[in-house]
């Protein structure tokens, strides 16, 4: 994390220098005050007559110095902020870049919510920590060191008092920090829980209402809320020990100094004025320590955040460019081969695909059908390398996908996902996602083929209609068609539909497939579907059952040779077979 700070070391240094000036002036200014009081107002060297001329001249001097101090303070703030915020910005951008390189498994492991908090809250915390260190450390060290030095020079007995109070203060600070430290992460967990309950109730309002579970949900919330409040209260109560105890120690020290000082004055060892100065200095020392406590608090919070950010930064993307990123030896064709492919999701150990062999020739269509959780989605996810095979190999245009550059590979493969993901921009931008240079004609042609042109044109602003959060302004079928247009516009050599037409009504779906055949004849197509009709005309159909291919061939040959396929077909053609 420190390497990010290197770039801005000079800003930090400037901030510290100005801070030194400000604090020096702060430390010097009481002397001018004393001068005004002693010689000006009380007129100690003029038999008690106030000296207005002296007050005015010293006053002006003091005003100028204070003004300079104020300017130094402001400038120190300017440089601190430049340093800390630019540091935070670099950190934030690097984290985001890193996240963009994560594989699905890595993103899922962190979870969206946690990544968002890391990018916002945690960066802010670390940024605050840096600012605190620059400003606070310098400030309190100067108070502490300067104060101690002056005090010890004055009289050694005062040093003894300081030596007695410091452990007390350290004990107080140490105890509170030791107790609160573990609570901060607990607090975060509790807050996450409250967030989760609210989020689920907002997103799942229909289900909660439909099953009349408002009371149970309220109970669930109350328990989460109660736990949060309890933890927060514990933190606050612990923290509330910090200041009063320090104040008591400070005032004890003042009393002790007066007591001891009185004795020393009586003995003639120190001047009365020194006692008063000693009070000032000891307050400065303890003040410095108090600030230190505050800094420690920010530091503990900041460190927890820094750790969370480091987790992100230290995560090496598990799916990276291959060794031969120069690309394909062949011109784009669109052939796909799976050789003895086995796969299990990272960290689970259970195989989802076993020894799958498949060969898809360029320009042909492969249909994939099978029961729920038979591995259909998993299989197609291996082709653009959303996951890497556990065993065996996947080849595109004759090259193992793991040896290719990711950009290269993925620009040849267009996927339409099971759950359409839309961005909150315009419909046009959503479709042109993979090809920002597409012309209007190309855009419309893709949308027409995807059967989306008609409903898009009916939108209030046509293609420029903005898409609402989570695509909620569109129906499920409309969302799917926008996602399909996006894939078609991109014109990769391989087109994968992962159950991408489930929300389309039958007529629209049929028209879509017809358009695909007519307008995109050269593409290699992989179609995962539930309905036999969607894949009936494919060049070959692979039937998946519990992660194995139990049949592969045309509709007709499968009807004859594959009992599972026959079963699927008859479940859909129940009455029709007899009719």
């Amino acid at each position: 994390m420190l390497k990010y700070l290197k770039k801005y070391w000079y800003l930090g240094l400037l901030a510290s220098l100005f801070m030194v000036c400000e604090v020096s002036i702060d430390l010097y200014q009481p002397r001018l005050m004393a001068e005004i009081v002693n010689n000006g107002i009380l007129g100690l060297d003029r038999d008690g007559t106030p000296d207005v001329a002296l007050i005015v001249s010293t006053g002006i001097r003091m005003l100028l110095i204070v003004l300079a101090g104020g300017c130094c303070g402001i400038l120190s703030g300017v440089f601190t902020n430049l340093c800390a915020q630019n540091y935070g910005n670099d950190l934030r951008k690097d984290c985001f870049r890193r996240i963009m390189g994560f594989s699905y498994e890595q993103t899922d492991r962190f979870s969206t919510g946690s990544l968002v908090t890391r990018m916002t809250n945690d960066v802010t915390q670390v940024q605050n920590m840096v600012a605190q260190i620059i400003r606070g450390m310098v400030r309190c060290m100067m108070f502490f060191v300067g104060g101690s030095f002056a005090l010890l020079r004055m009289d050694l007995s005062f040093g003894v008092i300081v030596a007695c109070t410091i452990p007390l203060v350290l004990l107080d600070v140490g105890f509170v920090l030791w107790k609160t430290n573990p609570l901060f992460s607990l607090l975060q967990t509790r807050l996450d829980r409250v967030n989760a309950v609210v989020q689920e109730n907002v997103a799942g309002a229909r289900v909660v209402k439909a099953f009349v579970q408002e009371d149970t949900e309220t109970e669930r919330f109350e328990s989460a809320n109660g736990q949060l409040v309890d933890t927060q209260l514990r933190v606050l109560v612990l923290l509330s020990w910090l200041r009063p105890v320090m104040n008591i120690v400070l005032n004890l020290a003042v009393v002790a100094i007066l007591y001891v000082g009185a004795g020393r004055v009586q003995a003639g060892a120190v001047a009365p004025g020194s006692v008063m100065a000693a009070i000032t200095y000891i307050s400065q020392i303890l003040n410095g320590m108090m600030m230190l406590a505050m800094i420690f608090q920010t530091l503990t919070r900041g460190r927890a955040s820094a750790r969370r950010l480091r987790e992100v930064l230290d995560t090496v993307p598990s799916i990276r460019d291959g060794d031969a990123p120069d690309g394909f030896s062949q011109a784009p064709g669109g052939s796909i081969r799976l050789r003895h492919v086995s796969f299990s999701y990272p960290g689970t150990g259970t195989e989802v695909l076993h020894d799958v062999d498949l060969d898809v020739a360029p320009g042909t269509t492969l249909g994939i059908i099978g029961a729920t959780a038979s591995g259909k989605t998993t299989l197609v996810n291996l082709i653009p390398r959303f996951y890497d095979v556990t065993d065996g190999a996947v080849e595109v245009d004759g090259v193992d996908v793991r040896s290719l550059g990711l950009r290269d590979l993925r620009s040849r493969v267009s996927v339409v996902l099971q759950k359409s993901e839309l961005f909150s921009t315009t419909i046009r931008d959503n479709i042109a996602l993979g090809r920002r240079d597409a012309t209007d004609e190309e855009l419309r042609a893709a949308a027409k083929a995807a059967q989306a042109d008609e409903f898009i044109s009916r939108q209030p602003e046509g293609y420029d209609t903005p898409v609402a959060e989570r695509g909620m302004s569109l129906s499920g079928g409309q969302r799917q068609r926008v996602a399909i247009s996006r894939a078609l516009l991109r014109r990769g050599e391989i087109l994968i539909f992962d159950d991408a037409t489930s929300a389309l009504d039958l007529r629209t779906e049929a028209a879509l497939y017809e358009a695909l055949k007519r307008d995109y004849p050269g593409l290699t197509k992989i179609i995962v579907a539930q309905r036999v009709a969607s894949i009936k005309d494919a060049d070959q159909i692979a039937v998946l059952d519990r992660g194995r291919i139990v049949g592969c061939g045309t509709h007709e040959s499968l009807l004859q040779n594959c009992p599972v396929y026959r079963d699927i077909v008859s479940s859909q053609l129940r009455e029709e077979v007899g009719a």
Partner: protein
Amino acid sequence: MSQTAKVTSSTIQQGVGRRGPGMGAPVQKAKNAGATFRRLLQYFRSELPLVGLLAAVVTVSVVCSVVAPGIQSKAVDRIVAGIFGDLTPILTAMLIFYLAQGVATLIQGYLSASLSQRVVRRMRSDLFRKIVSLPVSYIDNHSHGDIMSRMTNDAENISNVISQSLSSLFSGVLTLIGTLTVMLWYSVPLTLLCCTTIVLTVVFTRIITKYMRKYYVQRQKLLGKVNGTVEEMVTNTRTVTAYNQQSDAVETFTETSDALTRTGIIAEIIGNMMGPVMNMFSNFSFIIVAVFGAQFVLNGSISVGVISAFIIYSKQFSRPINELSQLYGQIQTAIAGAERIFSILDESSEDTSGQEPAQPVRGVIEFKHVDFSYVPGAKVISDFNLKIESGKKIALVGSTGSGKTTIINLLMRFYETDSGQITLDGVDIRDLSLRSLRDSIGIVLQDTVLFSDTAGANLAYANPSATREEMDAAARSSNCDGVIAALPQGYDTYLASAGANLSQGQRQLLAIGRAFLSYPHILILDEATSSVDTRTEKHIQDAMHTLMAGRTSLIIAHRISTIQDADQIIVMDHGSIVETGTHRELLARKGDYYRLYMTQFAGQQT
């Protein structure tokens, strides 16, 4: 002569107070601050004993902090004068006052912490109760992120302000009044001169908070945008990677992030100016006292002692003013937050009137001349008439956007009809209590919703008292027994992030099991098996036959195989019914249904 000690304690305050404006709390302006503030006070009404106690403790600590320095200066005077005789009792008295002050501050911290947490707990609780009783239409039409941020950010802001600022506010005002009274008693002209600094402080604070607010609001907006970008890009990570959009995403993000940093720097710099400038003002007031005080002494209108007292008091005076001016911004933010919370609390809840049904539900549903539109003027359902007999299986088919899901929304009273009437067993559903209406209906929705809980708890969601046998039976009927068996700890497996690790089809099976286990009189399946393969679906349908014998079911599907054995099939188009009948009747009619059927079973025209 004892001003040295006073200087110190004000530095302590500065060291701490400096965090004030720099804390990063966005200052937002409330629209109707007065009314909101009064309403916020209502929350303290039931905490009056605690508030009273807090006020008492604060008073003790303020009195101590005013008295103790006086004693201290007496001690200093003795030392300077060389009188050591009665020093010990003086020091003892001083010690007692300082200890009392320390203890009072401690109690004050404890009290304000529990006060703030009690108030915020109640506020969150009220808000949540409101959220669960809001009509679905409200939730559909508002950003979920925004509703969430009221629960967390706004409530948190209020909590912070109460716990941190309430006692400072108390003691600030008390100290101010006390000091001002003493100062006026000593010398009116000198007091008035001191007040010039107050004017300066107030004017400066006003100007600076205006700019601060502007930049803080802007920063908060940009922070929200950063939030949104990360959320969107991470949620849609599959699309971003599949379409090689990573570098574009980084570019967009960099732009926002840089803008945030620029605004943040300005905002914080302005915020950080407060401390040094206030320090300058307080020194200014010292000089005023010194110069004019000396003049007055020469005039003979006041004594020298008064000046030294004034020096202490003017310090004591400027501290609460600094604090109060910083509190001003924080309190404004809290009030703006409270306003956002109250605005949800003021939304009207779902209608809770209505009676329990007189007899057990039979399940006769009738739609009479129902009209409905989500947006005024754009009719989604027009003159919809349908009678569903008890115990029948009814299917709704039709193209996307034909209004099938809307019919369900109306029947569940997620939305209210514009005109016309829906009856259940002959009673208008608006005359039934929502609870009894919804209790009699089991529903599986298009978008499967699971909760971050165990698989068992998700299955038994609507029927938490279900026995293990009942759960097993429901799981078998809905074919989700396989899903549960495949989970590492079966029913007790915790579904992290609401079951994100289950496949789409598995989620649907679990949701169907949940509906089965609630033993509804009426079962609604809205595209509930779209991601389930047809063979599994067939098993489920067979199980439904037994389960729903004598009960009404309503099924929406695109797949003909899902609906062909329904007692009645309703073909919808543009919000009205175009055909009804059984599968065979409709096929024979060779109308819309026949054409749908042909596309599915004859395959695509080649």
